[in-house]
Structures are given as C-alpha cells and as structure tokens.
C-alpha cells in the first residue's frame, strides 16, 4: 500500500508574521485559575477563555443552532462568568459551573427573542434559512436534519429546548444536564420527558425527521 503524500506546504514564516501581542502565560491548575481570576490576573483571563471557550461555544451552539450572534453570546457568557466568579463555591468544579453559565446565557437569549414577537417570528424563519441544506453531497442529509431539528426546537419552551439540546445534541449525561439546568435529577427527567414528547409531536410534520421519530423512542441511560 503506497504511503500517502500530502500536498506541499510552504516555507517557514518571515519574522514579521509573528503576532505582536502575546498574553501572559498562565499555567496553574483549575483551582489556581479561579483564584487568579478573582484577583484579576490578566494572564488568567486569557487562559480562562482559551481553556473553556470551545466547551462554552459548543453548549451555546447546540442550544441555539448556528447563530449569527454567536460571538456576542459567547462573549456575554464569559463576561457573566468572570463577573460572578466569586459566587463559585467549589473552584474545582469550574467547568460544570461554566456549563451552567453557558446554558443560562443561551436561555437568556432565547427568552429575550421570544419576548419580542416580531423578532421571534423572524428568528424562526431565519433559523431555517441558516441551516438551509446546501445541495446534494455527503452533508446533505445531515444539514436537512439540522434545519428541521432547530425548526422543531423553536416550538419548545426555552427550558425544554435547553434540556433536549444538552442531552441529545451535546450528549451530556443526565446528571450533567440537571447540573447545567440547575435542577434536580428527577426534575430534569420529567422535563426531558415532556421535551421529547413535544419534539416528536412537532417533528412528525417534518418528513426529513421521519426515520428518527416514527417508532416512539424513549430516552435511556438514566
């Protein structure tokens, strides 16, 4: 079997290509990071974003879908987290706490949009356009499903949408979903049950989702 050969890349960069501003490095563990954030260590702020931005962005994107205001929402989540970092009682649980902040920020966005009727109508239709399938190809089926799923999720309440997205799209465990939503395990099971029922009921109007909703699936892994 021949060894695959990559297309060539170029020569090393000129010195001028180096970035001018380099944030102070912060190499401490999670607990040290929380203490440094509370003390306003500038390098800690950069490390905080670097370590957790992917996680926060994924949660927000999974709840909202691809959103043209994604940068605003991610920034809002981090600013909110930084301003309330003193309320974090257990520094070692920073990631779980931050997941809750991300979910709460997404919830705030959903509620803010739904309060304004005209905007909600727009967002719903725009959500479909954002996830418009891009034509035949390997991604076609996935993008069709993507568009339909967020059209259905727009018909759920903010709390149900978040629970559903974290469980089924993000793949969180039930206990993690409960923690991110700030409710008990029993409550999140009930909420997910309702969310799933409503999702399936609305999804039956979308032929793209037929193969997943016909058969009345029940969530598992309790």
């Amino acid at each position, binding site marked *: *079997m*021949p060894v*695959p*050969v*990559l*297309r060539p*890349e*170029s020569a090393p*960069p000129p010195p*001028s*290509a180096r*970035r001018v501003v380099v944030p102070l490095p912060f190499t401490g563990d999670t607990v040290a990071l929380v203490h440094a*954030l*509370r003390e*306003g260590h500038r390098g800690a702020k950069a490390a905080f*974003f*670097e370590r957790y*931005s*992917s996680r926060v*962005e994924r949660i927000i*994107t*999974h709840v909202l879908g*691809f959103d*043209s205001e*994604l*940068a*605003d929402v*991610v*920034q809002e989540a981090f*600013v909110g987290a*930084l*301003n*309330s*970092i003193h309320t974090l009682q257990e520094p070692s649980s920073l990631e779980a706490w931050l997941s809750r902040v991300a979910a709460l920020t997404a919830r705030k966005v959903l509620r803010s949009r739904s309060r304004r009727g*005209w905007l909600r109508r*727009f967002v719903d239709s*725009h959500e479909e356009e954002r*996830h*418009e399938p*891009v*034509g035949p*190809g*390997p*991604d076609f*089926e*996935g993008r069709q*499903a*993507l568009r339909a799923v967020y059209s259905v999720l727009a018909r759920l309440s903010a709390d149900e949408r978040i629970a559903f997205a974290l*469980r*089924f*799209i993000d*793949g*969180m465990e039930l206990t993690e979903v409960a923690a991110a939503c700030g409710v008990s395990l029993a409550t999140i099971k009930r909420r997910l049950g309702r969310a*799933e029922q409503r999702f399936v009921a609305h999804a039956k109007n979308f032929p793209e*989702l037929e193969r*997943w*909703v016909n058969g009345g699936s029940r*969530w*598992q*892994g309790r």
Partner: protein
Amino acid sequence: MARPLTPLGELGAIVSQALDDDGGARLAAIDAARERFEATPGGSGQPVRRYVWLGAALAAAAAVLLWFLSGERALSCEVEGEACEVNAPLRARPDQALALRFSDGSTFALSAASSARLLAPGATGAEIVLDQGRISAQVVHTGKASWRVLAGPFTVRVTGTAFDATWQPATQSFALSVSAGSVVVSGLGVDRLVRAGEQVAADMTPQGLAWQTRQPAAATVSAAPSVPAAELEATPSTRSGGGASSKAAGLDGADAAWRALAKQGDLRGAFAAAQARGFDAACDAASPSELLLLGDAARVSGHAHSATDALLALRRRYPHDARRAAAAFSLGKVAFDQLHDYGQAAEWFAKSQSEQPSGRLAREAAGRRIEALRNAGHVAAAGQAARDYLERYPDGPHAELARAQLK
C-alpha cells in the same frame, strides 16, 4: 459523555456533526468573542464593596449638580419613538434599518442586522460604539459638534459630516466612506483625515494592519476627474501585490457580499459570491478565519479543489496560526468525502490531531482517521488508531466503530 442509544440520540449525533461542518464560522466567532472578552475592562470578579457604591453615588450626585450648574444639557436620543438607554444594545432587525435620532437633528442609521450602543451622550455630541455591521451618519454641523464612532480598535471623530462606517468583528474588517465633510479616523497607530468622496478600509492580519485608501471617484468628485475610480493605494508592507489589489476591489463590496453570507451561515451563497468576485482574489485578500470560511464554503458547495486551495493557502500563509489544525481537519474531510482519497484524508486527520491534541476537533479527527485508514486498506494502522481512540474517548461517537475495527 454519551448520548442515549435511541433514535433521538442518533439524530442528535447527526445534528452535532452537521453543526461541526460550520467549523470555520464557529471558530471565527470564538476569535471575535476572545478579542472582545480580553478587551473587556475589569472583571476581577470581586464583589463590589458597599463603600465603593457610596463613593460612586457621591460622584454621580456631584456630576448631576455640575450638569445643572453648567447649564448644558446632554443631547437626547430616540429610537423608534423611545428614548435610547445608555450602553444598552441597539440591534437593527435583520431586514430593516434602525435610526438613532438626536435632539440636535443628527441621525445615525444602523443598517439591517447591525448592532451598536450609545455611550456618553453630551451637549455637543455622543460616543456610539458600532459593535457589528454598518452605520450611516448625518451629523449636523453646529460649529462645536463632537461625535465619535468607535468601531473595534478604530475611532472616527466627527464634527459635521455624512459618512458610512462598517465594522465586522468576526473578520476584523473596518471600512469608512465619507460623502460630505471630513472625519479623522484613528487607531492602531494610524491617525488620518478622510475627506468627502474617499473610502478607506482596514483589516488586521497577523502580519499587521492592512490599510487601503480609495481616492475620490470622477463621477462624484469633480475636483479629481483624472483619478480612475478603481485606482487604489495599499500599504505595501502588509500584502503581496495581488492581495493588495484584490483587497482594494473588496471596497466595491465584492468581499463584503461573501463575508456577509458566510456570517449568516449561508456557505453556498458565500461561495457563489466569492466565485463571482473571483475565488482566487478572495483568497488573496482573506485573513486566516476567512480562508477557513472560504474553504468550508467551497467544500459544502461541492468544489473540492477550490476548498483545497483556500485551506492550503491558510496553512501556507499563516504557519503559526491556531486555525491550521481546523484547516487540516477540513482538508481531511474534502479528501475523504469528495476526493475519496482516503490515504490523504488519514494524513490530514492525523495532522489536525497532532497540531491541536486537545482542540475541539481532536476527537472527531481521531474518529475520522479510523474510518479513513480502514477505507484506505491500512488495516493495522486502523486498528492502532482504534485502540488510541478508545483509550482517549471510550464513550466518543466513534467508539462503536473503533470496537468493530478491533474485532
């Protein structure tokens, strides 16, 4: 993490994967959020102490007293018939402009889908932060008017004029077009006068600030009839010749069109717009995050070779950029899904993993590499990749595939 083994769990995995296909736009959003977050002042997280509030209250009371004594009243501002709130986000509807009307007759119109905030209204003007999009200003000349529009790192100082300013944080692009009077634009060491009929554009790249000025066009400025409309001046040290000229062409809106479509997630539309403008020229003028977007746009539009060109351009031109790993991942997807060159796909997925072993695409790259090696017929390597995957991601979305590979 593990999704439930139900049809809805399977659907969720497909949706998550489809969202990952917008990786370029999402990375650009993270970059924009990072820069804004790091520019956010304060944020120590310390609870504010009571005496600080007391001091702030006293200072506010003194400011109010001074304001009454001075006899000067801050301009008022209305949006859609309601008073503007200081520092509250003002977002134009995606299909409609939003006008800020000041009591001195000046207006600032936000274009559709743009957002801004009103800061520090004073007696002779105000500061307006253009968070994203485009703002068109008509400032009444009073002899002492003092307005500022803050767009990213740039400040436009105005006394009495009409202009359009555009700021795209995702692409770090700034543009200004002055139709009457003059303004001073400053930022990042630049401080220059822009007169009526002139357009300027600036992009921040890892190499520095790329800055172009377009001179008054003959059609609009009779004083300069001999200057061709397309004659542009570029900062020579920041771009190669082709890049500069193609960037300048972007002032005509060609780049703005594909960027706007990409920002909305319409990658197919973005690719069509980039093709209409000239795909190679768009690549020449693109920043790293834009190259990633162009690559994704070409890939989902089924143009594998254009996608490869854009992604390789990113890796070639920005050898220290963190987005190289994402470009490698996308190159792997192009090779796998569209060129069916599984050996090369495996190499790209491995490269993506090795460049950012803890990156957001690392798990997916590890999984896709198993598939690529298996399809390429590299059975032993696929087995090793499967073992590595299970060790690191025992509950990952490719765990079942990895176990099947080891049977």
